[in-house]
């Protein structure tokens, strides 16, 4: 068979003819070359056209971008930081932040996982009171971020998320640009965000950016997502002057109906044993101050469920540690943003029949001031078991407190005031006895190894009590701080994850520490080992951005809550507990958290097993933190 010989001249001629027939430019000669190759049995020839002809005209420089405009909007919103893991679908906005915006307000923070980026935002907003922005890749990034969004939703924390997405299919080039695109990217998280949008223009973006901020910050607060087309971020703006950014105006949170507030005040004043339960109430010191004012006006006990830093634990009216006892005596119970009214007023039995028993007396008047019912979602069940509260006031409790306080004071006459004072004295004596009992309890296992949690917390408090400290995390519900430390400010405690999704504590603590940094506060967190292993890269972010925080490892070398659950299952079957460690422990090998932290540039000590070594190690680590760096002390603890 005679081989077809194609000379250079003939090849170019043919390519040009085919190119012309297809209506393509000379530079786009790939179809011709492909056809030529397909008709030949010889080895593929070089694409001579692309090598010799000039490229088609293609604009390579620009002086403006949609991303620049977006940064202008973020600046107007007062966004101070952007957390992100870099990704191609928001490269336009990324570049605009670091160059057009000068990487200042917002400043870009690097995270090794999107879950860290969102959880940092979660912790940050609970200290700062306003959100930072989270930049996330569509599809793959959002799926990484989803768990942290769920925690924030359950915790009513406003997360401001910007999502990169390639909307126009004809503009997607490479394969990964297709796998990083979706027609409705937010659908995968829509069950647990408040609002989302995918703006079709930059003006649309400006308006939606303000709207999203307002929605996120209106109680009940929650996450919002804006999906931003990558072309819109990257391409030049034809006329910047034609775009406008609406002002961010004030929003008054929903306040309780005046009649319902008056009825509540009347019940509280007339009650012999009123009790207040506060959960996600105090967003700021103002919230705590208002609750103190209400409790003192009534001289009634307060149970702080810990959703936020609601009430000073050393106040004589704080009876969180004996909630069951005060609820059993109550004739009126006022809930303030109580997420789980049923669980608070019942004993739940984790047995085969899963029974529950009320601990409050029949006929007790119950009231809950809560914004939770204002934005319900159907799929996830974070709203807890139904409780038939006598009066639900659908409003923001913090916003409603001034009217309630005023109504209580107005309704209190001299005889009631005398009765309140007597009640207050009784509660003060009980509170004092409770505190003394806790001190005595703390001595148990004082010198034990592994270290008891009472000892660990006492040693830590000894080192920080003279600082302006903030406990930004408590991964495994260690009860000792809230029993023994002095939580006299709202920022001393920020609440927990909300959704009980593991992997929150390490990054959320860091986000809160970031917010505390500018106020000069000392941030400390008690860190579970299981939680840190979900997001160990958090430590690198802490070191890279020099965020001062002390991580104190509560290292019980297990997912210990689950270990106890499995142990209970074993016993339910009468099979013994010797296998309960399978799948629940984090040992063999033991993780060297100090070594891990050091590898990421964080000062670290440990593992510490002797109680007497804890205090000196904490002192050395805190010296590092006070200089503006993160540190970690790994303490091997008793499980609980």
């Amino acid at each position: 068979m005679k081989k077809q010989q194609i000379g250079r001249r003939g090849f170019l001629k043919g390519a040009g003819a085919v190119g012309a027939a297809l209506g393509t430019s000379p530079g786009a000669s790939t179809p011709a070359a492909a056809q030529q190759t397909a008709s030949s049995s010889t080895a593929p020839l070089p694409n001579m056209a692309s090598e010799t002809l000039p490229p088609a005209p293609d604009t390579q420089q620009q002086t403006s971008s949609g991303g620049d405009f977006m940064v202008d909007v973020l600046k107007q919103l007062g966004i101070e930081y952007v957390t992100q893991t870099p990704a191609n679908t928001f490269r336009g906005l990324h570049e605009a932040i670091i160059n057009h915006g000068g990487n200042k307000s917002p400043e870009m923070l690097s995270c090794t996982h999107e879950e860290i980026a969102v959880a940092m935002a979660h912790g940050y907003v609970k200290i700062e009171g306003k959100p930072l922005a989270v930049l996330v890749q569509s599809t793959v990034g959002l799926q990484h971020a989803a768990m942290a969004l769920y925690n924030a939703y359950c915790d009513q924390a406003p997360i401001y998320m910007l999502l990169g997405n390639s909307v126009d299919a004809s503009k997607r080039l490479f394969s990964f640009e297709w796998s990083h695109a979706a027609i409705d990217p937010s659908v995968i998280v829509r069950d647990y965000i408040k609002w989302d949008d995918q703006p079709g223009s930059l003006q649309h973006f400006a308006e939606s950016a303000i709207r999203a901020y307002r929605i996120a910050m209106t109680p009940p607060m929650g996450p919002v997502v804006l999906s931003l087309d990558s072309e819109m971020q990257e391409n030049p703006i034809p006329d910047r002057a034609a775009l406008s950014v609406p002002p961010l105006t004030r929003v008054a949170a929903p306040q309780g109906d005046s009649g319902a507030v008056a009825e509540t005040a009347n019940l509280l004043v007339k009650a012999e044993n009123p009790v207040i339960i506060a959960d996600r109430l105090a967003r700021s010191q103002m919230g705590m101050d208002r609750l103190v004012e209400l409790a003192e006006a009534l001289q009634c006990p307060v149970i702080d469920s810990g959703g936020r830093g609601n009430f000073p634990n050393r106040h004589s009216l704080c009876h969180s540690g004996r909630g069951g006892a005060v609820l059993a005596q109550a004739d009126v119970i006022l809930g303030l943003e109580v997420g789980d009214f049923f669980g608070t007023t019942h004993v739940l039995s984790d047995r085969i029949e899963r029974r529950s028993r009320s601990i409050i007396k029949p006929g007790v008047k119950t009231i809950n001031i809560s914004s939770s019912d204002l934005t319900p979602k159907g799929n996830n069940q974070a709203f807890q078991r139904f409780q038939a509260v006598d009066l639900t006031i659908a409003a923001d409790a913090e916003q409603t407190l001034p009217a309630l306080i005023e109504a209580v004071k107005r309704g209190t006459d001299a005889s009631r005031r005398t009765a309140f004072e007597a009640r207050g004295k009784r509660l003060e004596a009980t509170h004092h006895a409770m505190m003394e009992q806790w001190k005595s309890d703390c001595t148990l296992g004082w010198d034990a190894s592994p270290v008891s949690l009472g000892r660990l917390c006492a040693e830590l408090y000894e080192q920080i009590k003279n600082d302006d400290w903030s406990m930004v995390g408590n991964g495994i519900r260690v009860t000792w701080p809230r029993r023994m430390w002095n939580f006299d400010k709202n920022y001393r405690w920020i609440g927990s994850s909300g959704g009980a999704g593991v992997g929150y504590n390490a990054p959320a603590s860091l986000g809160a520490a970031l917010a505390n940094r500018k106020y000069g506060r000392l941030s400390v967190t008690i860190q579970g080992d299981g939680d840190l292993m979900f997001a160990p890269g958090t430590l690198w972010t802490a070191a890279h951005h020099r965020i001062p925080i002390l991580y104190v490892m509560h290292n019980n070398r297990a997912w210990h809550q689950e270990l106890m659950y499995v142990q209970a299952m074993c016993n339910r079957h009468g099979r013994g507990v010797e296998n309960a460690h399978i799948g629940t422990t984090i040992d063999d090998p033991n993780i060297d958290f100090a070594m891990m932290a050091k590898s990421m540039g964080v000062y670290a000590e440990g593992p510490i097993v002797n109680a007497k070594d804890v205090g000196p190690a904490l002192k050395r680590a805190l010296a590092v933190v006070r200089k503006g760096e993160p540190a970690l002390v790994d303490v091997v603890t008793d499980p609980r």
Partner: protein
Amino acid sequence: MNRLIQIAAVLMVATVPSAWAQEASKGDAANGKKVYLADGCYQCHGRVGQGGLMTGAAPILAQTKMPFAAFHRQLRSPVNDMPPYPEKLLSEKEVADIYAFLQALPGRRPVKDIPLLNNY
């Protein structure tokens, strides 16, 4: 009220089977410690019985004031969320041994002896 509690306590002790009373008095604290650790009691109550937390509070057990009969009942047919320990998992002797171990634990110290706790 105190008198009623005393009467109830006497009745409770009086209803303890004599075998239990004997077991309680003969408990081997050293073996009780082994069983306490091997059977996972410490996972909720702490290695030295200092108490802890599961779904709710796990009570302090060091030098428990709970009479042996009540302790025995709590192991066999527990209230709240404590897992049950039937006899095939925990013999009568082992129950007594654990009880002896808990009674032998050092318990609380005077707060005044621990300077850290006096600074609160």
